[in-house]
């Protein structure tokens, strides 16, 4: 298996020389601002800035909510992707396309709009929220559950897109073969489909988790901001910036590190370009 790959990498196809120029600019555009953040950091004060109660509370809250939200993305987004990729609706051929357009909306929608939409649905005067408040005395905004809802809302399309793409690329030939050998749809799904799309699923999960960690707009407009309950790391960075720039820089670097860990450790085979 490595023989062909190696040959392709070593001789390659010749690259036009000018390709390096825009590529370098593109790389610098991403790398330099992060480098600037490193230069701006107050390294001596870093430990005390990062170990403050508010920073630790925010980190803990961010990790927990992002993990729960990613799990919810898998729980609900996974089957959604399978249906979008595989379901046959002979009667309503356009229905799946319409569903897909709506599911992908949070990808392009500004997160703050998503937060407002959630607020108008689940807020205390919202369509569903009013009922929850009157019947059970439950108010969703200002709770950790609201943070998780906001994150799941914005992150789920990332999982759906990745997984649906993987399912479509994999095709259904192996499942068809499995069926001729007597496997039930459930068995074929578990033993054939899932292993085939695992790289796509993994990259989808990593993307969804990263998106949850970085979620800001929907959270601040729907869940509010309170230490230990709803103030995640990005919200704390935005707030610290008002009064304490070096604190904001330290927390930003923490988010950069967390993101790098997610990319490097959690990187699925599909994302490192080699497979």
């Amino acid at each position, binding site marked *: 298996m490595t023989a062909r790959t190696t040959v392709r990498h070593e001789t390659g196809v010749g690259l036009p020389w000018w390709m390096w120029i825009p590529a370098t600019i593109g790389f610098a555009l991403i790398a330099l601002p992060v480098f600037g953040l490193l230069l701006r950091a107050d390294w001596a004060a870093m430990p005390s800035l990062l170990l403050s109660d508010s920073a630790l509370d925010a980190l803990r809250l961010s990790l927990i909510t992002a993990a729960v939200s990613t799990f919810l993305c898998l729980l609900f987004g996974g089957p959604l992707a399978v249906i979008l990729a595989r379901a046959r609706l002979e009667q309503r051929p356009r229905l799946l396309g319409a569903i897909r357009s709506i599911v992908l909306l949070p990808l392009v929608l500004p997160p703050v709009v998503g937060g407002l939409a959630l607020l108008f649905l689940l807020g205390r005067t919202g369509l569903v929220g009013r009922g929850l408040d009157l019947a059970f005395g439950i108010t969703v905004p200002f709770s950790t559950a609201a943070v998780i809802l906001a994150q799941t809302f914005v992150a789920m399309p990332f999982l759906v897109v990745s997984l649906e793409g*993987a399912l479509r690329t994999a095709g259904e030939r192996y499942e068809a073969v499995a069926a001729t050998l007597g496997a039930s749809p459930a068995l074929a799904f578990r033993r054939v489909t899932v292993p085939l799309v695992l790289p796509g699923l993994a990259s989808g999960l990593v993307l969804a988790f*990263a998106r949850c960690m970085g979620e800001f707009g929907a959270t601040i407009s729907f869940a509010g901001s309170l230490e230990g309950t709803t103030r995640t790391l990005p919200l704390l960075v935005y707030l610290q910036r008002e009064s304490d720039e070096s604190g904001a820089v330290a927390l930003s670097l923490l988010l950069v590190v967390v993101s790098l860990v997610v990319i490097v450790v959690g990187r699925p085979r599909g994302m490192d370009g080699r497979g």
Partner: protein
Amino acid sequence: MTQRVSTGRLAGSVAVAAAALMVMAGCGGGSGDSGAQGGAPSGADAAPQTLNVFAAASLKDTFTTIEKQFEQENPGTDVTLTFAGSSDLATQINNGAPADVFASADDNNMKKVTDPGLTAAAPARFATNTLQIAVAPNNPKGITSLAQLADPANKVVVCAPQVPCGSAAQKVEKAAGVDVKPVSEEQDVKSVLSKVTSGNADAGLVYVTDVTAAKDAVQGVSFPDADKAVNNYPIAALKSSKNQELANKWVQAVTGPTGQQTLKAAGFGAP
């Protein structure tokens, strides 16, 4: 055969991941900095004199009124107003934003601009503001005192202590000996107000002027210790202004009788 299939599948998932990352990067960048460039001058028409005024968000209604009077009294002048949180504006000015005048909602943020010597003259105080409790119209929860905000049955929203309205809230709580347990500490006073107007919070600590500006959407409840935290509003022309004369004129318009009248009508206190 297996090899080819698996390569294709991986290429597919890489492409999808890359596309998703691109979208993600695009969305992430847009969420935080809206309005940062909002007040940039057009520069297309060189004939009229333009004046860029950076002002605290709480000055939106009053400065818009003063702008109209100012442009009438100074024909050929085009005033561009940029409203945002004072600390955001101070950061932008310190990073070279093309502002001619800065009006801050507190002394602290004006100090960020005077410290590096960016103002043309010492800032002049032109207004004060105090806190009030904002509740829903007709006050359904019957809130009449600051002490009632400590009752967990009332969902209370305040500003975070890092921003001016939040530090003012802390001061009045301390003076009154009340420990408010908010359900959220918002980034700015307008967010506090919107949590009350949308019915998601029962009460919020906002400025008197925010209650006035919200008209019928909320009701204001005054409390005795409000005068323990008085916010001063300073204004100053900036050194980098290409039109010092016009910048000074704007400062005079705000500190002068007509400007003061407009501010008073909106609920601001005298400087």
